[in-house]
């Protein structure tokens, strides 16, 4: 009960966040080395795998540079909204943190679903999905605007009275939880865990290009959101990873900006304004299907 009701200071919470982020990265690197050894034993450690993994960490580097520029503004918006528009003030306790994690996870579900449902969000989120591989390094593969969309989905929590540092802590926990899901080494976890939580198996499905796996399993920590809202799919047939159409590049800059390059070219070549509108507001799967239809009609 001590953790639940003891009072933290904002500084202590900030300290926990930095500490978690740093040590989790060390843990993830350790795990990634194990994965590499496993691929080496299975003779699947290819040049493309190596290049792809390097590109993943390179996008992380680019993303960190962007964060260094916009991070303070991001935090500033939360603090401003919290200071001026909060309707209650929740104490900085473990209990508040637990409630915030559940709500931040729900917010993440909707944000993630949003990113998949329109061309605007997909332009940045496609980066995370465009790797044809699936390992810990993919978890760190970020798009240029990945920091932007969470803002709108998590800001309501500040209005409800959650201290911004607690919201950031919850966001980090939701993010870190998913990091270790990006792996093929774990097949299925015990039944109760698979029922309640997002697992490597569920998240492989999310990264699949198989028809029955498209736009499924958006969850961060709790898979129950997908089960409740009808976006869940069980991993049955082997997953083929990536996006439609495949990117086929390990050039970090190409990878990082691929989503915006693709969106720009699609908008440029669009036949009319209605089509352009659909490109921005409809699922990227729609755009891909249009292109497939066009190709087959030309043939």
């Amino acid at each position: 009960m001590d953790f639940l009701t003891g009072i933290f200071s904002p500084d202590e919470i900030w300290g926990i966040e930095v500490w978690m982020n740093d040590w989790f990265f060390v843990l993830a690197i350790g795990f990634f080395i194990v994965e590499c050894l496993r691929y080496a034993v299975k003779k699947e450690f290819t040049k493309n795998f190596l290049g792809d993994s390097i590109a993943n960490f390179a996008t992380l580097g680019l993303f960190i540079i962007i964060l260094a520029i916009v991070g303070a503004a991001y935090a500033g918006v939360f603090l401003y909204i919290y200071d001026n528009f909060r309707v209650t003030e929740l104490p900085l306790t473990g209990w508040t943190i637990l409630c915030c994690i559940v709500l931040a996870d729900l917010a993440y579900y909707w944000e993630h679903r949003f990113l998949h449902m329109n061309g605007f969000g997909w332009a940045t989120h496609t980066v995370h999905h465009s790797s044809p591989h699936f390992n810990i390094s993919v978890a760190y593969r970020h798009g240029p605007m990945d920091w932007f969309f969470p803002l709108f989905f998590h800001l309501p929590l500040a209005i409800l009275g959650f201290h911004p540092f607690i919201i950031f802590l919850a966001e980090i926990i939701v993010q870190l939880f998913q990091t270790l899901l990006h792996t093929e080494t774990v097949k299925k976890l015990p039944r109760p865990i698979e029922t309640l939580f997002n697992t490597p198996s569920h998240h492989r499905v999310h990264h699949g290009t198989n028809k029955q796996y498209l736009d499924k399993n958006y969850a961060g920590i709790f898979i129950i959101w997908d089960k409740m809202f009808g976006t869940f799919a069980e991993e049955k047939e082997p997953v083929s990873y990536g996006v439609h159409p495949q990117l086929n590049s390990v050039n970090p800059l190409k990878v990082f900006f691929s989503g915006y390059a693709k969106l720009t070219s699609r908008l440029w070549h669009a036949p009319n304004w209605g089509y352009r509108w659909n490109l921005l507001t409809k699922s990227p799967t729609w755009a891909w299907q249009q292109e497939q239809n066009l190709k087959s009609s030309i043939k």
Partner: protein
Amino acid sequence: MSLFNSILTSFIIVATFWGLALFQGKIAHAIQPQKIIQEVQKEVKEPSIVNLTKAVKPESIDITGIRQQVELADIQLLWQKFNNSTKLHKHLKYQPKKVYVLYQKISKDYQQAEVTIGYDINEMTQFNKHYSIDISHNSVLLPENKYDKTQLSDAWEKINHQKIKEYVLEVHALNQQGETTTTQVFVSYQ
């Protein structure tokens, strides 16, 4: 579930967990009284008359916190020290309901006193030292209300200077954020 129903359900979930966070103090208290009852029962079982009377009618408050001889003009420094005492605040069971400020050994010119700022030990999971305040025959200087700093210091002028003072006690009631909502001031003469 349709998109509309999914969003609606999400709002209900948000309301639920927001409510849980909002009423955590009350929930914690709902769990707490049972513990206290158990403790009282334990005390009653022991054949000690002193404990029994104590459990029935509290005549003293036990507080724990920090105590120091200070110039009353510098009391803010002691408050800072108190607020920064993470060791003390870590051992709070929940957001404290009251903070006590006890002035003893008050100098004749009212410039100095031994001041203790602390919480009721019942709100702590653990504490080192505690100080007992006999509240059986104190009198009210200021009834429970919202006061500003000058009103609080003016209250001291109502003290009967002829009598020997044992203590002046300020009791600040706190809200969920630890801000003072109301204050009471008592004085006790020897």
